[in-house]
């Protein structure tokens, strides 16, 4: 206790009387180390988290209902619809019908029937434009032209990945339509039945297959495919809040209503493709590894700072020991300095991360080809990383102090080796 008290006095005064700019520099280094530890893994994980968030917001919603494994369609879709209408947590839902279609473009300009037709195979999604927009804000993903008007017919939205203009480089693999713009007519063919539609808009989003599909009103798709059944392929549900807890609660309600006999009910987390979760975990490990390198660099920095500090005060340390001050007190003084640098540096790091970076990346996601990257920094993960940084910094301060303090007292006093 005495050693602790004296160590605090010595350490506190050393910090207090230290050169201001030197202290600022060390704290800055510690802050960068903290940011390296949090931000690198945060952005790597954020790449996937951004993708997950986009899938949740723009594709599958907070809950998704799909056909049972041995069924092609969701059974009793109308019953499910009625149940969904009674659950207050459900703010909106979109019933989707899917159909493989063939789309032929440039109908007016193709004069020579011997040339290759401008045609692709695509997946058409029949939607209620208003309901779909309420769940996934599909209208916000229209990058050319306009969104479907629920009161109009004969219009279609085309995903950008079906167009040559947006798939340069990999169009040969997927096939694509050339020179297609909003206002052009395309022919949609389902099982030999065809109908012309006018392209109302082009849709693009870095979320699942949103940009791969074509969208048209569900009644027109069902009419085209001559399907009398009202059983759907997918029901995407938006809840009043996006938390997994609410998702699980509503899922439980649906299961209690026996919906799991008609369809598969999954929360957003359950419906996520496994590879996304795997990549996320891999990136987390990678980020932690890169952060660990940062910690090693920071600990060496602290080691050198404390070592130089202690060795330049070697004679003073010898004299303190000479007059009877316990070694532990002197070691505590240097450990306290390290703790100060780690704490203040990390505090600034936390301020920058939570006060600026997270908000900034939320508002300005990093434009990666397959997702809009955000910064993910879970408070509990940040706390663990801080504890690791703090403990390692304490050791980095303690070891050089220990090396100097354990030297022969008289040799230290006299400056002998």
């Amino acid at each position, binding site marked *: 206790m*005495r*050693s602790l*008290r*004296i160590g605090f*006095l*010595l350490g506190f*005064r*050393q910090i*207090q*009387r230290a050169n201001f700019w030197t202290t600022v520099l060390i704290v800055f280094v510690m802050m960068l180390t903290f940011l390296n530890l949090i931000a690198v893994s945060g952005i790597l994980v954020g790449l996937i988290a951004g993708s997950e968030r986009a899938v949740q917001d723009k594709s599958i919603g907070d809950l998704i209902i799909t056909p049972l494994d041995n069924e092609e369609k969701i059974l009793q879709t109308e019953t499910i619809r009625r149940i969904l209408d009674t659950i207050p947590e459900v703010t909106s839902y979109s019933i989707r019908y899917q159909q493989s279609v063939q789309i032929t473009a440039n109908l007016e300009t193709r004069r020579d029937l011997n040339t290759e037709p401008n045609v692709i195979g695509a997946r058409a999604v029949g939607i209620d434009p208003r309901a779909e927009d309420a769940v996934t804000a599909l209208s916000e993903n229209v990058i050319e032209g306009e969104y479907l008007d629920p009161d109009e017919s004969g219009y279609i939205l085309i995903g950008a990945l079906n167009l040559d203009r947006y798939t340069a480089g990999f169009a040969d693999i997927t096939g694509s339509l050339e020179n297609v713009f909003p206002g052009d007519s395309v022919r949609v063919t389902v099982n030999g039945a065809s109908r012309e539609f006018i392209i109302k808009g082009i849709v693009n989003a870095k979320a699942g297959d949103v940009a791969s599909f074509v969208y048209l009103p569900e009644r027109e798709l069902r009419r085209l495919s001559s399907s009398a059944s009202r059983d759907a392929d997918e029901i995407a549900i938006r809840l009043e809040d996006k938390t997994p807890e609410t998702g699980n609660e509503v899922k439980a309600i649906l299961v209690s209503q026996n919906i799991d006999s008609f369809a598969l009910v999954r929360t957003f987390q359950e419906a996520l493709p496994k590879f996304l979760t795997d990549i996320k975990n891999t990136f987390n490990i990678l980020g932690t590894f890169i952060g660990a390198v940062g910690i090693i660099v920071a600990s060496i920095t602290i080691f050198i700072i404390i070592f130089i500090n202690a060795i330049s005060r070697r*004679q*003073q340390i010898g*004299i*303190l*020991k*000479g*007059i*009877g*001050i*316990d*070694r532990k*007190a002197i070691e505590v003084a240097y450990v306290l300095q390290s703790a100060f640098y780690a704490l203040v540096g990390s505090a600034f790091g936390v301020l920058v991360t939570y006060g600026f970076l997270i908000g900034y990346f939320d508002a300005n996601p990093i434009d990666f080809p397959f997702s809009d990257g955000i910064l993910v920094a879970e408070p509990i993960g940040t706390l663990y990383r801080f504890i690791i940084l703090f403990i390692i910094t304490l050791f980095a301060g303690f070891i050089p102090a220990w090396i100097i303090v354990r030297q022969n*007292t*008289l040799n230290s*006093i006299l400056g002998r080796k």
Partner: protein
Amino acid sequence: MEIIKATNIHRKFGEGDLEAHILKGIDLSVQEGEFIAIMGKSGAGKSTLMYQLSVLDEPTNGNIEINNVCVSQLTEHQRTAFRLNTLGYVFQNYALVPDLSAEENVMLPLLMRGQNWQEARTNARQAIDAVGLVGKYLNLPAELSGGEQQRVSIARAVAGKPKILFADEPTANLDTVSGIQVIDLIAQLNKNYGQTVVMVTHEREYAMGCNRIINMQDGQITNIEQLR
């Protein structure tokens, strides 16, 4: 009463051809309340002898008893505690902690002895007053002259009322006036409070106020002058 008893003290450094035999069988006895000066030319071994007597170093051979404790049998930890509780030190370069104020420097060994903050501060201020630096409690060492710093160093050494005060050339870095003031201060401590003092100096005029002068040459005591 005998407070220091050194018997057949040898101190060697290095090994083989590089071995240097600095102290060659010193016998010395110091009485409680005595003020002795150790003198000699450079390389005579006077500082090395003082380091042995003040438990800052261990003799290669020989035995030292201080206040009836055989210090050569103490562990490193016990030696540190012994120095804290029994001995006081004044070094030639003042040896104050530059980041601590005058009173905090004096408080350090008092806090280490277990005094609480208030008690240590009161005692530190009394010690600072006693060395003639009234009111300079909060000055940093850099804000004090060399003589004043050495006075703070003396205050630190005696604040805990040690059995023996060791002073290693306390005037070496001081001008003549400051040097005389420091020596007078140490002499007063001896005279007024019966403080046992062992001082190394190479200036004879500073040693004239002592009880005895131990003259050394080539690692041995050549003669002892009894001044009073």
